[in-house]
């Protein structure tokens, strides 16, 4: 397929212009970086800065707003942002007490956010990093911290931001972030690779009739292939894997927040149907659902596929996820 734009770098620049033109949440660009701040989350002592490569729209630039991130920074398509850009946003959010960086656990993000965090600390700022690692397909549970971050980013950003809105201390905001990170698990499947924006070629070859399980969000291959299954068969299998993963950390799912995320080309019709299958599974297993949504939240350009994200809730997390918020990416009135 052909994109309506060929040059990835100008595409990201134009996309930022588009985002700044929306009415609703009023964002400010940070210098000439691919970065924005939402300066009106007034009650916060601790500020939340998120980021990652482009190609995942409406993440990451689109998740700054009331009740969500104070700053967001993007790299080029599928490349983590540079330390300079990240550092500029850390400064631009003007935190009284500290800044929490939230990003998906990929080498590139870890390296670039890490350099920016070190620079900020060297300049006397208090900075913590929450590396989202929700993708259960990407490593064994024993190597939880090696797992990649996919759509779980959104629940972690949501909870951490709501904690900051309550005026929580730096320490507590970080604790909430790590807890949500630990309790958030996702699994994705793809039936067609993303198309590279510059060459128009698929980013990996996936034979007709096969699906890729556990692909990352950056157009890379998944961890294994499997035969095609329709959603009514596939979804319960995926849910079994997710539930088993929670059980392995002695964390049976008591209450859940659920997000069905479309990766690019999967139709909203399918996302709704998948959402119905997920709910049926949870109802059968008597897991109450406090929140359920479906849509495109963290895409991988035009990849065909979806991910299921489950956050295990407790009395602290549930109201944080329920708090109102607004952004291009994610809104809860």
């Amino acid at each position, binding site marked *: 397929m052909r994109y309506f734009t060929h040059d990835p770098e100008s595409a990201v620049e134009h996309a930022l212009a588009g985002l700044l033109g929306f009415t609703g949440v009023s964002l400010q660009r940070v210098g000439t970086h691919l970065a924005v701040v939402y300066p009106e989350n007034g009650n916060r002592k601790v500020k939340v800065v998120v980021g990652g490569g482009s190609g995942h729209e409406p993440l990451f630039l689109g998740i700054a707003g009331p009740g969500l991130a104070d700053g967001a920074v993007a790299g080029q398509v599928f490349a983590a942002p540079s330390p300079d850009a990240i550092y500029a946003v850390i400064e631009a959010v003007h935190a009284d007490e500290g800044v929490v960086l939230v990003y998906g656990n990929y080498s590139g993000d870890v390296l670039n956010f890490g350099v920016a965090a070190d620079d900020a600390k060297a300049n006397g700022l208090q900075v913590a990093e929450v590396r989202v690692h929700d993708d259960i397909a990407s490593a064994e549970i024993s190597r939880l911290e090696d797992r990649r971050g996919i759509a779980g980013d959104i629940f972690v950003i949501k909870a951490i931001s709501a904690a900051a809105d309550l005026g929580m201390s730096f320490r507590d905001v970080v604790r909430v972030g790590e807890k949500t990170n630990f309790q958030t698990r996702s699994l994705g499947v793809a039936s067609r690779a993303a198309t590279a924006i510059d060459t128009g070629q698929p980013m990996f070859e996936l034979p007709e009739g096969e699906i890729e399980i*556990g692909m*990352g969000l950056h157009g890379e291959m998944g961890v294994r292939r499997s035969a095609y299954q329709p959603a009514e068969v596939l979804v319960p299998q995926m849910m079994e894997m997710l539930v088993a993963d929670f059980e392995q950390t002695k964390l049976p799912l008591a209450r859940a927040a659920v997000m069905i995320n479309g990766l690019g080309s999967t139709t909203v019709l399918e996302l709704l149907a998948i959402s119905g299958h997920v709910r049926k599974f949870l109802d059968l297993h008597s897991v109450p659902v406090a929140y359920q949504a479906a849509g495109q939240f963290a895409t991988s350009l035009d990849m065909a596929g979806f991910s299921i994200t489950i956050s295990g809730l407790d009395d602290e997390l549930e109201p944080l996820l329920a708090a109102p918020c607004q952004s291009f990416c994610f809104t809860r009135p």
Partner: protein
Amino acid sequence: MPVVLFHQTLTRGDEMSINIEQTRSLVARALEDLAAKRDDLNELDRGLGDGDHGTTIARGAKAATDALREANLGSVNEVFTLTGRAMMRSMGGASGVLFGVFFQGAKACAASPVLDTRTLHAFLKSGLEALKQKTKAEPGDKTMLDAVVPAITALEQANQASATLGTALEQTAAAAERGARSTAGLLPRFGRARTLGERAAAVQDPGATSVSVFLRGLADHLPEG
């Protein structure tokens, strides 16, 4: 500001050192070689990661040559540190920081008006130390370290043998190329490729390939003495 001829024809000699301007031209030409490999490097990264290493490194190479073109340089160290800073700023991705800190290793070394085998060895060795602060990857893990580490070992030997810069660069480039080739067949343990296991074994690591392309560029474009 000095005018630099980026495309002047240079041929390899057996001189012991080159000056700041020559170093500026040399590094710029090696960076241009790297940028020219954009599509090949993307293709390698398609098999192992997200298909963008060529685009990313080309963006970094362009930013670095732009920065070099305009800079007032007081030492050969600055040629390397400027390159590293420009790459780190412009590239993003895993390789942005890694190439960035590697080139910026020269910052920790004594300022020098000439580049010779000894100073080059000092810069790159310092860069390797900086790299090791950023990643736990070791040779055999299918990363750029598979090219960097043997390259520096070769450079160290050349330095001990008091080899000319030309000879040293030739040996360094050859070692890097062998190292990059050796990654084909290895199981990835770092970076995006980590989760792919066997599926990514056959492909040569793009980051290691970039390192070897750059070092080959230095060896090829060294001016006659």
